[in-house]
């Protein structure tokens, strides 16, 4: 019995050494995204590969579930740990659901950071925000206010799912800061679950429910696109405007039609680049994440961490008719 037990422990140890990161020459960094087939994350992967090229000895594993669910991501985290990756940079479908799996990964020596959509503090070493929550919320309000052109009007928010960490944080800021833009009258928040069908129905619902609706803010790529489709289909271009956060390649038709004259986003290529660089520096022990400290993002400068070990990359960037052609070719 005792022999069997030691045999089992021995072989388990042998197996652990066989897959241990030390045996791999290159640093394996996994970019775990919300779901595959998402243009935003494909662009982030482009940036990750850029960083890998600069750093030299890095292998990028770009992965994610087919559907944006925390369950799918947990499965993949467990697989990645078994594969012996050195670092995981994750954009979480749920801030808390991934924590136990990521904790286990860190106990096994894997460096874990979150980017884009964060994980709770216990589940990662640092969190790279694409931008600061405050700046994004205010930028959305400002774009809505500009579209109202000085007049007062009803503004509604079309979000993704009601559990999306980043969406909810931005909406909080918008509700808090709406007073800074007196012509913006926030009336409602609805959820399209990042599903084309549901986002379309919710956008239509908003237009029916609020006859004086002037602007829909959709801080989600699916939502802003479908709200724009509704505005075009219902021939409301010029009466109802759509703004928020979207992908230039998906929004170019809607900018040109006038349904969404301006919208914002950060640069996902830079985001993937920064996340990879930070993950590399932490995994190779070149740097450590400390509250109040700074981490290098390579050519993008430094990110300053707060008490939650979170830090913003850059303020969001506004796209409009003047630059959409150029950026729609990038992502």
């Amino acid at each position, binding site marked *: 019995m005792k022999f069997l037990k030691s045999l089992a422990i021995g072989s388990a140890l042998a197996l652990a050494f066989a897959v241990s990161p030390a045996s791999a020459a290159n640093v394996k960094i996994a970019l775990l995204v919300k779901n595959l087939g998402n*243009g935003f994350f494909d662009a982030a992967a482009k940036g990750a590969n850029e960083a890998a090229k600069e750093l030299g000895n890095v292998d990028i594993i770009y992965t994610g579930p*087919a559907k944006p669910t925390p369950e799918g991501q947990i499965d993949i985290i467990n697989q990645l740990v078994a594969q012996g990756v050195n670092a995981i940079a994750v954009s979480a479908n749920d801030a808390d659901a991934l924590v136990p799996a990521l904790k286990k990964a860190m106990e096994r020596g894997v460096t874990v950071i979150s980017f884009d959509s964060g994980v709770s503090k216990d589940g990662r070493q640092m969190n790279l925000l694409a931008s600061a929550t405050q700046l994004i919320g205010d930028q959305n309000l400002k774009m809505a206010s500009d579209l109202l052109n000085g007049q007062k009007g009803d503004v509604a928010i079309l979000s993704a799912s009601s559990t999306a960490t980043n969406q909810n944080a931005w909406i909080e800021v918008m509700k808090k800061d709406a007073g800074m833009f007196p012509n913006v009258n926030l009336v409602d928040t609805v959820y399209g679950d990042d599903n084309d*069908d549901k986002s379309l129905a919710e956008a239509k619902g908003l237009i029916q429910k609020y006859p004086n609706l002037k602007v829909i803010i959709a801080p989600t790529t699916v939502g802003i696109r479908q709200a724009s489709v509704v505005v075009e289909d219902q021939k409301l271009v010029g009466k109802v405007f759509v703004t928020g956060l979207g992908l230039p390649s998906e929004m170019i*038709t809607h900018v040109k039609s006038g349904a969404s004259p301006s919208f914002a986003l950060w640069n996902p290529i830079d985001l993937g680049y920064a996340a990879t660089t930070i993950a590399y520096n932490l995994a190779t022990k070149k740097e450590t994440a400390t509250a109040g400290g700074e981490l290098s993002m390579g050519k993008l400068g430094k990110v300053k961490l707060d008490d939650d070990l979170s830090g913003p990359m850059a303020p969001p960037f506004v796209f409009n008719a003047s630059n959409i052609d150029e950026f729609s070719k990038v992502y």
Partner: protein
Amino acid sequence: MRPNRDILFGAVVFVLIAVVGFIRPSFVWPQNLAGLFNDTSVLIMLALAQMTVILTKCIDLSVAANIALTGVLVALVNAAFPGVPVPLIMLLAAGIGLVLGAFNGAMVWLVGIPSIVVTLGTLSIYRGLAFVASGGTSIVGHQMSPEFLALPRAEFLGLPMMSWFAIVVIAIFAVAIRGTRTGRAFYAAGGNPTAAVYTGIDVGRTQFIAFCVSGTVAGFCGYLWATRFSIANVDMANGFELDVIASCVIGGVSISGGIGTVAGAVLGAIFFGVVRNALPVVYISPFWQLAVSGAAILAAVIVNSGREKRAGRLILKEAASA
């Protein structure tokens, strides 16, 4: 008995629309009701196709995956060759759908695997192929040609073409299901397979035809879906097969085969469409919407199954008194 049931259910749908209209009058403006029908067009067409399959005691879980694969393929064709005329693209979509449906049907007919197992498998296969074909990325509006996107939106006599497609499909089913030998064979094959064999109906072949019908309609809807949302990717119509089956069940199509009407399936889809589109408009918290629409489905099914039982007893009484 059947016409009465459909009239009664039609009344339920009417009351539902009236109630929503009472809470929010703009919901019942003719323009909005036309929009509602347009939004439900795809669901109506798929519900009719699914009914055909269910009538033969089978089920097709692969319709949404069929939409995704066909949608991605025709969008890719359009992106690569913008010059291909749209009617040809529509034929291509229906053709791809037919092949996918025929594969399901052949597995059921020739290999003898239960349809729920076959289509559960092809559901993953078709979506997987859609992922491979698209490379995991989306084909978005500006990559498609303007003609490709415009046709279902183009208006004819005040209604978008999308609605006209649904009307034509309803008309075809209304005539074909009752008026043709094959149409009646669907009922016979599912209602009493043993008796059907004695009357010379090949049950397996009938099921194969039903799957071909379902696949063709789903493929055609793949094109419509891509244009309606002006995007084609692996996530298209995710989970939509359940909406389609729910519409059939709500509309009184018996999941055990042999019972169902064109009017019932259409009303079921409209009921489902009204519930989905009305909830965002009336004051129901987004957090309750899923539960509310689920409860509405369950209520409709309970009412329907109750009526099914009563109909059975009545026939027995008539038979006894005869």
